[in-house]
């Protein structure tokens, strides 16, 4: 694995040609059948979901959609979901639980959308509900951070049994720009923030947040989408097999403990 700084990785994941779920899903899964809507308000194209097979095992796939161009981004709101996106994700997760399908979440978002309607429809409540419900979802949940994992908007799809990250992916409490803006009142200190925040996959393995780093080709995923997809696929098949073999009570206790033990304090 390469030894790049957080800033260098930030540049890699911002590559215009970095593959997105629209590239990966058709390669990693078969028979992907998209299911729309939250049954409450509407359908949010920032999160797509559906049923597919992974190495002939049916799974539920829930994915945040970064666009590959302006048109795709307009449709998927630059991967910034509204509450109905999170509620669709939860609906599909509950459906997966009912039919004993593992859930695979592909995380790639700068954060949940900030807007009047998002607030009015309960952005905070929608994220909170997902976090709480995923914690006790009686089926294996695997999350993979593909590029950016930004804040609560990412966490809403990342309460899981195992969290994997692509080698250059970043996962953080807030974007480095937001961090610099809040703490130093100077968004231009973004790079300094990225280095300080400890947001690379290696950092997050150290904190017990990330369980597995999935290798990218030299220079980044955009240099060989197929190879990256194969690496993701290989990890997912292994994880689904391992986690499906664990009885539900043990699985849920382990999931709770994974988050329960994260915290750094003295007393």
């Amino acid at each position: 694995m390469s030894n790049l700084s957080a800033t260098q990785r930030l540049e890699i994941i911002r590559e215009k040609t970095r593959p997105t779920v629209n590239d990966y899903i058709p390669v990693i899964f078969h028979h992907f059948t998209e299911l729309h809507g939250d049954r409450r308000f509407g359908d949010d194209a920032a999160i797509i979901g559906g049923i597919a097979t992974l190495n002939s095992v049916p799974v539920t796939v829930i994915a945040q959609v970064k666009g590959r161009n302006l048109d795709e981004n307009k449709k998927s709101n630059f991967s910034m979901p509204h509450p109905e996106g999170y509620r669709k994700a939860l609906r599909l997760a509950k459906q997966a639980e009912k039919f004993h399908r593992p859930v695979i979440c592909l995380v790639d978002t700068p954060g949940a959308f900030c807007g009047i309607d998002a607030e009015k429809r309960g952005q905070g409540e929608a994220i909170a509900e997902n976090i709480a419900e995923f914690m006790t979802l009686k089926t294996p949940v695997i999350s993979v951070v593909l590029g950016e994992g930004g804040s609560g908007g990412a966490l809403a799809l990342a309460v899981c049994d195992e969290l994997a990250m692509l080698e250059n992916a970043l996962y953080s409490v807030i974007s480095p720009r937001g961090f610099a803006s809040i703490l130093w009142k100077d968004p231009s200190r973004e790079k300094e923030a990225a280095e300080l925040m400890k947001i690379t996959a290696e950092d997050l393995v150290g904190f017990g947040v990330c369980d597995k780093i999935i290798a990218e080709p030299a220079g980044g995923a955009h240099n060989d989408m197929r190879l990256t997809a194969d690496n993701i696929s290989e990890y997912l098949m292994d994880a689904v097999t391992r986690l499906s073999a664990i009885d539900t009570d043990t699985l849920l206790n382990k999931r709770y403990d994974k988050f329960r033990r994260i915290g750094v304090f003295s007393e």
Partner: protein
Amino acid sequence: MLEDLFKMVKDRFNEEKSEQTPESVPEIPKDLMFKCPRCQSVFYMDEFVSLRKTCPTCNYHARLSWKERLDITADPGSFKPFDENMTSLNPIGFPDYEKKIHALQDANGIKDAIVTGECTIRGYRAVIGIMDSNFLMASMGSVVGEKITRAFEYATEHKLPVIMFTASGGARMQEGIISLMQMAKTSGAVKRHSDAGGLYIAVMTDPTTGGVTASFASLGDIILAEPKVLIGFAGRRVIQDTIRQRLPDDFQTAEFLLQSGFVDAIVDRKSMRKALSNILRLHNFKKEEPAQ
């Protein structure tokens, strides 16, 4: 996105402050008189304090310290604190974080932004949590997350209801990803308490925002709010910058949330003890005899 939350809260504060000191007003000893930042009425500090820091003219509810909140909520002498000495370390090595925490500890008489414990309210026993916005805008880091989690676990074990007075600028940036994970940790403990049949009442106070709104604060079986308080996920300025239109005046107030269906009831501070004890009674909890 949690961007700008702190800034927004600070700006609101500054607005309030600047309105308090127009040039024409003669100098008034600070602790003798209180001028309402909302309606500008001036009255005696004693009166303001006896009204639990609410304005007799416009019903403005000022922010309270953890001690003030505890004193007007719990039965006298009933409070037993949990985890009083828990202190944040510095997981990402943020410059001068320890120094800042120590200064805040000295100024506020608490080790971090929340006090948890057990008390009775009009005779009804409950686990209680009070967040204090004077402590780094009550942002949630390791200590806040751990104390809330333990409080819910204790309540689950002892079959007690939980009452959380929420106030927060959101996740504590200085603790990086660790603070984000506290959202999952606390929500997980709330869910377990709920699945075990436990009652959780969230009382949203000024301001309840960001990662706290997007986790345990929004998971109450019953969610109460004080009048006019700020409740939201994203900061007002972030939203304004994103969508480039003027936001309605009542945007992200308790009343706005009531209207949109995310708050059960707005309760005045003077009626809070009664409202809480009533909810506890309606869930078949039994009043304890006062200690001799």
